[in-house]
């Protein structure tokens, strides 16, 4: 069915589209290489009127204006940092999706790696302490495992479940 539709569509195409016309399409912009730079810069900038989009992604009028501004500035040979500075001067740091590194954003940039450091240190300290505490190689999990099996086995019959309940409570108290 689907292929039939496609076939009809193709047939119509053959009739209506003057194939001799086929030529290479033009780029929307004069200089596609430069447009890459424009897009890269635009992807760093926030569209201020949108909910949460870069000006590269948004079609809002202000986003289009700002993107044109970026294009003008790229054309006139300004660097990425010039353009971002220009935007920040007008709209504040809010316009940058890559927050600047300064005193108030230090925690933001360093935070994740600080967290990692803390995480690893806490982990290593804890593991060492743990190994020191459990000196004798008693495998608690075997004991626990046995109890687990007991429970699982016991609880599968309803009337025993009642008993399993109270006994497991005792077992828990012993452990803690």
């Amino acid at each position, binding site marked *: 069915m689907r292929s039939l539709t496609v076939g009809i*569509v*193709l047939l119509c195409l053959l009739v*209506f*589209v*003057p194939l001799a*016309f*086929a030529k*290479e*399409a*033009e*780029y*929307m912009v004069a200089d*596609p290489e430069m*447009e890459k730079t424009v897009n890269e810069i635009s*992807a*760093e900038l*926030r569209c201020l009127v949108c*909910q*949460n*989009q*870069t000006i590269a*992604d948004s079609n809002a009028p202000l986003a289009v204006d700002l993107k044109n501004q970026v294009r003008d500035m790229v054309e006139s040979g300004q660097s990425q940092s010039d353009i971002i500075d220009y935007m920040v001067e007008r709209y504040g*740091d*809010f316009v940058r*999706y*890559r927050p600047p590194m300064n005193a108030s*954003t230090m*925690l*933001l940039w360093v*935070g*994740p790696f600080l967290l*990692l450091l803390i*995480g690893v240190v806490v*982990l290593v300290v804890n*593991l060492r302490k743990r*190994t020191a505490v*459990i000196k004798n190689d008693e*495998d*608690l*999990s075997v004991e*626990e*495992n046995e*109890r*687990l*099996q007991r*429970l*699982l*086995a016991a*609880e*599968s*019959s*309803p009337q*025993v*479940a009642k008993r399993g309940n109270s006994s*497991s*409570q005792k077992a*828990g*108290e012993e*452990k*803690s």
Partner: protein
Amino acid sequence: MIPEIGHFALILALCVAVVQGVVAIAGAQLGIRSWMVMARPAAQVHFILVAVSFVCLMYAFIYNDFSVEYVASVSNSMLPIQYRIAAIWGGHEGSLLLWALLLAIWTMAVARYSRNLPLDMVSRVIGVMGLISVGFLMFMLFTSNPFDRLLPAALDGRDLNPLLQDPGLIFHPPLLYIGYVGFSVAFAFAIAALLSGRMDATWARWSRPWTTIAWSFLTAGIALGSWWAYYELGWGGWWFWDPVENASFLPWLVGTALVHSLAVTEKRGSFKNWTILLAIFTFSLSLLGTFLVRSGVLTSVHAFAVDPERGVFILGFLVVTIGTSLALFAWRAPKVGLGGRFSLVSRETFLLMNNVMLVVAAGAVLLGTLYPLLLDSLDMGKISVGPPYFDAVFLPLMVPMIFLMGLGPLARWKQADLPDMASRMKWAAAVSLVMALILPFVMGEWFALTSLGFALAFWIVSSIVVSMSERLRKTASNNPGAGLLARIAGLPNSYLGMNVAHVGVAVFIMGVTMVNTYEVEKDMRMEVGDTVTMSGYTFRFDGVTEVEGPNYTASRGQILVTVDDETEAVLFPEKRVYFVQTMPMTEAGIDSGLFRDLYVSLGEPVGNGAWSVRVYYKPFVGWIWGGTFLMAIGGLFAVSDRRYRLASRKRKAQKKTAGQTATDPSVADQATAPVQSMERE
């Protein structure tokens, strides 16, 4: 009348939830059996009431009852029926009702499939879930009642946001919510363990399958949302680090840590405190996500209508729920035992490292998401934190984690031997290095990050090959003569599931690396008959026709894609204008393939019958979602492992051989034998 029934059912559900929460937990704490037995029937009644309420709302949507304010605000009589039903969760109030319904379903499921748990444990778990439901039902009834009447009734509805009029809306939110809400089970088990003071390995075993199921759904939900954004938004992005995306990613990251930590707690009795804390965190982050989306503290494309009063309510609920849980944790956790001994180099340590990485990654995402709010509330200026930040921070955290992901499954429990592992892994390392160096040149161009991506993907896959072949060699002696597939099928499902999920990660990395490096994009001005050629595909623009949809008109472009003059695909990108909200929407034309997507989106008419057309060649992009779905499937497969079904199977067997009680040692031994043999592998 029907909406009033729904409203009334919701009020009754609240009353039942209070009983379910208070009586069941009190009964368990005081040891009053008659109170504890109420938990299960209460959960059933609660479910029925919420379901009645949901059906009433659905009725109002199907029959276009615009005297209901919520229906009038998100639906319209022209809206096709499937979207009228999906519109139930297309706005704030209805999506809350979906939350409540799914919570009731999960509670029912716990009540139904927990026959082999001690009664006090079951009542605590059901009780905690009842209390969560109390919070949500109160939130709904006091601030966001979906059944509020609109007098006089609207003539027609304001329509569903055109962005949401897509099959994505039918599946994405329910899957996501099943995941979010599913973590409440793990949470409830953790709280039950804390309440009872029995924080041993048993609770981990009980909650592990539930957690994995919830995790799988959340994974699938996130993947579906990403795919939806990919084809709906018109430029083929698939992840935007939007606050609301982050809100779903946070519970996923911590939930992933939880799934791994539960494995250790269950098998080795270690990290008990940590696992409990993770269970609390995971669900807390699900709740936090709800707060972020619904309170208006952050801007996002996904945000619901802003209402500070709602924000205060959810924040209060958050503080009560999470605050109480963490206080309970601080009170009980110091008494928990340490569990089995393991050396610094062991699978336990690898899994702990994985946990640290995932939690730190979640911390980084949380920090980036909340940092603008933090600065603003300290009056230190307004900043935006967007994709460039997250990309810069997230990647360095993920690389070591993925490296460990290859090693972890090969390390032995208790004590692993590094030189031994190195020698087992040398082939895997060689394969991934070689592929990382060669593949970029095969694809065209070499970049450092691309090589890294390939190395990580092949590292995962080859380490799985090493692990599988070692296992198969071991089992080969057990059943000589069996074919390879039969022998693979003989491996435990949990092990296979894990590997499927890990392969999913590799597939995902492969997709991301490929599409990020080798995507080609062209923004063209195309007249009828114009062609553009990229990566061997020729796209010919065959004009635009006006078409009528049920509630929109569209300009539908037609693009013929050929390879060497052979037709490869015909694409129909659309630009739609919906009648009611008159919002222009792009619908990309996509030809999906195993190794590439061809993606075309229609821009604006630019005179002379010409249109601006964006044409993309996206290699391996489908692997991003393919990989993610593999993760989800792996999770579900792992849950199907027979040791989780053991008890129920045995129960059935027992019904047949009546008279033999479970205390009979022979039966118990038979049942536990396979479990124990697996523990030692």
